[in-house]
């Protein structure tokens, strides 16, 4: 809450900004992959195909890149209160998650405009949100404390995120990887399974239970590592900031 209020207290456009970002990105990719190149990837309508993964990606990307500064930016505040220190990461995931939910009408708009059909698999959306929340908290808990000790990690994380954007099935789908024989490997990127859950709402063929299972396991492992890292570094972080 605090995040949203601080963020928008000084900007008049407020909500529009959180929607504008994915919209501009989607516009660019839509232009490149359906107008410039022949469409060889994804499914039609491509703009809906793109947004079903791009919007959740914005959530993951925003939360993780903000998590790199979670403890440094709020150092003064953290030093003055004793509320559980996991909150500083959790609230980033939450506020970005709210932005994600708030941007869904954009997806609905394009789905209606292009006449995409909604399938019963839309219920997997809930599972997708749950898995993604677990994954994002896990990654955040790993990144946030470590950045305090290794400042380079902030830049490394940005780079890794940019890599991950193209390495995840966002502008393409898991079936496109099958042609290359990379789908088995891609499943170990938890985002692949999660995005396939979201996509199943409009494109049931994109659902890949193998990727979901591996992705779910990876998410749980990451959150376990995250909690471990967090618990082991908490004392040192408090001294450091």
């Amino acid at each position: 809450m605090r995040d949203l209020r601080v963020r928008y207290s000084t900007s008049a456009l407020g909500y529009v900004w959180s929607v504008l970002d994915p919209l501009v990105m989607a516009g660019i990719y839509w232009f490149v992959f359906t107008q410039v190149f022949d469409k060889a990837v994804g499914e039609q309508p491509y703009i809906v195909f793109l947004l079903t993964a791009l919007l959740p990606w914005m959530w993951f990307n925003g939360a993780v890149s903000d998590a790199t500064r979670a403890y440094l930016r709020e150092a003064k505040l953290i030093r003055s209160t004793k509320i559980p220190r996991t909150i500083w990461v959790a609230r980033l995931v939450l506020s970005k998650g709210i932005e994600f939910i708030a941007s869904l009408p954009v997806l609905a708009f394009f789905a209606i405009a292009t006449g995409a059909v909604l399938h019963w698999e839309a219920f997997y959306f809930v599972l997708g949100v749950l898995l993604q929340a677990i994954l994002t908290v896990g990654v955040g808990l790993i990144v946030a404390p470590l950045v305090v000790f290794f400042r380079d990690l902030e830049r490394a994380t940005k780079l890794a995120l940019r890599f991950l954007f193209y390495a995840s099935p966002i502008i393409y789908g898991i079936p496109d990887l099958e042609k290359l024989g990379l789908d088995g490997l891609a499943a170990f990127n938890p985002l692949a399974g999660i995005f396939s859950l979201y996509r199943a709402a409009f494109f049931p063929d994109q659902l890949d239970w193998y990727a979901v299972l591996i992705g779910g396991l990876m998410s749980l492992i990451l959150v376990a590592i995250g909690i471990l890292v967090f618990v082991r570094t908490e004392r040192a972080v408090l001294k450091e900031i």
Partner: protein
Amino acid sequence: MSDNHVIRVEDAGIRFRLNRRSRRSFKDLFAGRKRRARADEFWALRHVSFDVTAGEAIGVVGRNGQGKSTLLKLVAEVMLADEGTVHIGQGVAPLIEITGGFVDDLSVRDNVYLTAGLHGMTKSEINERFDEIIEFAEIKRFIDTPYKHLSSGMRVRIAFAVISRLEEPIILVDEVLAVGDKAFREKCYRRIEELLRGGRTLFFVSHNERDLRRFCTRGLYLDKGELVLDGPINDVLARYNDDYGVQ
């Protein structure tokens, strides 16, 4: 554990590194444990044990850098002990780094709600006390001014006003009040006395003997990270003056 011990510190210790700036790079990470510069560590506090019963007023005495503020931070639970245990039975209103929770861009009004909320006050409680807080800080005119435009004195004033209205049974006071002008400091002290009469437990760090004698009944004397003496405030001050002979 007996019921009327609100604070119980047992053999607590906390250590810091001496020779390292906070920045490390990846080079250190890959350099391995052995090649990394061996960090000297020192114990800011060690083997500190004491119990506090509800309603006690305790003054913490010692020279600069002997662990007074660190002890307060342990009691406030904004730092965690490396060894031993610190058990705090009740809520704490920490008057240390009090301006920390304030956001520059938000107005004074929003900041009051935010900070008080962060310390566990509900919205209706804040509504009830809002006027009281603003009046205490004497900044009625600046209520909708962004926090960043306030003077440093005003910042401390509003922060003190908020924290001292928290209904917490334990109050920690570091030397924060040195910033305010004389009249406001006196006002703060009267507020602290008022809280003490209400049965609160006080932890007070100061170099000012008069203030210490005014509020405190019991003293803790810290030297080189150890608790040297725990006794009535007058004894503790006498011992401190003996050791560091300024009469």
